[in-house]
């Protein structure tokens, strides 16, 4: 109590003129008053500043303003950062980033290694000749590319460049970020005690990938596609290790940046959205599935981290969370951007829309049975 008393006596002079008789206010209130006083001071200083601009002779005042204004701004911004809501936002944001960082590193390291050490023609050799058969095989082959979705787009593009049928490459593109061991492990960690969620995610993602591949065989047109022949994999002329290191480093920084974006969006959602809105959606089974599917698209969390975000959406049904996990790695804002850049906008729009529908249907059907 003595410390608080001392604090009080220090701040009284600043607040006394605001409210002399209110002795009972706590430290926090006093601080707010203090801040108001500071803000008023800042205003006054700013006004001084503008009046000074007319008379460049009074350098002294200008100097004082230059000395005071940045300090005041820093002080106000600092206070703003101390707001409990912003503190909570920063904590949640950092929590998602820190939690996902090791998984992201692991994923990008492995994807860098495969890019550098496994030539893409291996995939061509492994796949069956008939496209309809190649699609599910390519979907299952997604297991071997442990990376997040940012890594799978360029790989799929290079597969097409080396003669893999586009349908199979797209099945691979969709399944790889969702069903690889790293992501499934992360899912198991995020949902302790519910292995059904891991199985449901695996099956629903595989089903969506295969269906989309077949859908492309059936309806897809080559002119939507703008495949740019690209160099991934090993190129002669420099060391595989250098290639691995640089690919790893680039992928990590790239995906890490997107992870921060996702963490910020998720934290905003976590802190700012009133619980009642969540309850409105979580109450209705159909709306909640659609809502979380839309959320997965907007949040754009890396597939290695999205299970943790899904786990945090405690108010929702398991099926809705499954939809989040299935849609997230296949369609989201950053993926649409990546695909538009790689394959062209005409493709990205059609493909993403169709994938969303198929993914939601698959997760409802499989989740309905398993969860």
């Amino acid at each position, binding site marked *: 109590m003595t410390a608080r008393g001392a604090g009080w006596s220090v701040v009284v002079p600043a607040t006394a003129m605001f409210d002399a008789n209110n002795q009972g206010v706590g430290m926090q209130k006093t601080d707010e008053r203090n801040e108001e006083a500071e803000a008023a001071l800042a205003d006054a200083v700013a006004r001084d500043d503008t009046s000074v601009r007319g008379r460049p002779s009074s350098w002294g005042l200008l100097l004082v303003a230059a000395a005071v204004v940045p300090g005041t701004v820093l002080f106000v911004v600092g206070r703003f950062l101390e707001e409990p809501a912003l503190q909570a936002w920063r904590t949640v944001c*950092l929590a998602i980033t820190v939690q996902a960082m*090791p998984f992201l*590193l692991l994923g990008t390291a492995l994807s860098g290694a495969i890019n550098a050490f496994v030539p893409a023609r291996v995939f061509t050799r492994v796949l069956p000749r008939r496209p309809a058969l190649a699609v599910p095989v390519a979907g299952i082959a997604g297991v071997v590319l442990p990376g997040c979705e940012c890594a799978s787009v360029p790989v799929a593009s290079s597969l097409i460049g080396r003669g893999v049928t586009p349908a199979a490459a797209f099945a691979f593109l969709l399944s790889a970020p969702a069903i690889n061991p790293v992501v499934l492990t992360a899912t198991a960690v995020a949902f302790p005690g519910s292995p059904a969620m891991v199985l449901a995610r695996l099956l629903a993602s595989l089903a969506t990938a295969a269906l989309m591949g077949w859908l492309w065989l059936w309806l897809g047109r080559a002119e939507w596609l703008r495949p*740019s022949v690209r160099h991934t994999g090993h190129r002669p002329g420099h060391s595989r290790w*250098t290639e691995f290191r640089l690919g790893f480093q*680039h992928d990590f920084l790239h995906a890490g940046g997107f992870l921060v974006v996702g963490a910020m969006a998720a934290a905003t959602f976590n802190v700012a959205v009133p619980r009642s809105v969540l309850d409105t959606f979580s109450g209705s089974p159909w709306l909640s599935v659609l809502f979380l599917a839309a959320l997965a698209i907007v949040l754009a969390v890396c597939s290695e981290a999205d299970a*943790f975000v899904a786990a945090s959406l405690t108010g929702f049904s398991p099926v809705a969370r499954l939809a989040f996990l299935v849609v997230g790695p296949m369609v989201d804002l950053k993926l649409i951007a990546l695909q538009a850049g790689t394959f062209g906008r005409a493709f990205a729009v059609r493909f993403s829309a169709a994938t969303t529908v198929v993914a939601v249907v698959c997760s409802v059907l499989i989740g309905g049975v398993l969860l």
Partner: protein
Amino acid sequence: MRRFVQLVLLVLIGLALLHASLFTDLYLRYVKPGMRPMLIASGALLLVLGAAEAWSYRRRSGGGARHGDRDDHHDPDGDPATHDHDSAPAAHDHGHDHSGTPRVAWLLLLPALSLLFYAPPTLGAYTASRAEPQAVAKVPEREGFDPLPATSPLPMTLTDFTERVQQDRKQAIKGRSVQLTGFVTPDGAGDSWDLTRIIFSCCAADARSVKVRVHGSTALPANTWVTVTGTWHPGGTLGTSSAGAALDAVAVKKIERPFNAYLDALPPAPR
């Protein structure tokens, strides 16, 4: 310069992770204790990457224009003789040509600097006051409740207390003096407040809160850690879900913040 930026980013993130996990216990504010080895490994790996980058950077700038030293797909800035290995300029947009820093990577500075210099605190009263009360898990009927130990006051966790109040049909908690620990979440109206713990299953993003309402004592400032001794505050039928998890406080004692704040643990043993 672009590669220099990558170097700085890698080293900063690596240092931030090591700072939070190896040198301090900051990581406990965000993730589970079990994450520590992975965070340390990640930090170390990033520093190794940064070192490798620095080494190649130095070799290249030291080696001048020796062509063999310059691997053709990483162009030092401002070098007019850069090798155009990607035929389409569009390939630079989405960056698997591995040259340059993806612009989005700059965002990694935020968590890195935040961890290093201005780490936000554990979640507290603000989050708890906005969360809906967490329903305690149903204790299986056949297992039932063991008889309460005879210790008085009896140290309990908030979850245990809530379970006893709302599910123990034998009403063993009735009239018992118990001791609970948590932090203060003031309630705007009234003279009661919530003794609170925030727990999560994965990271602070999925935080839930356990609360016990405390009567008969004025609230200390939000987020003060306290041990409260008291008896069940009657309300509803004890042993059913109509009973409120509430306490008539006899004594409220300030304590240190526990090492891991995200555990619904027993009150610390008196020293």
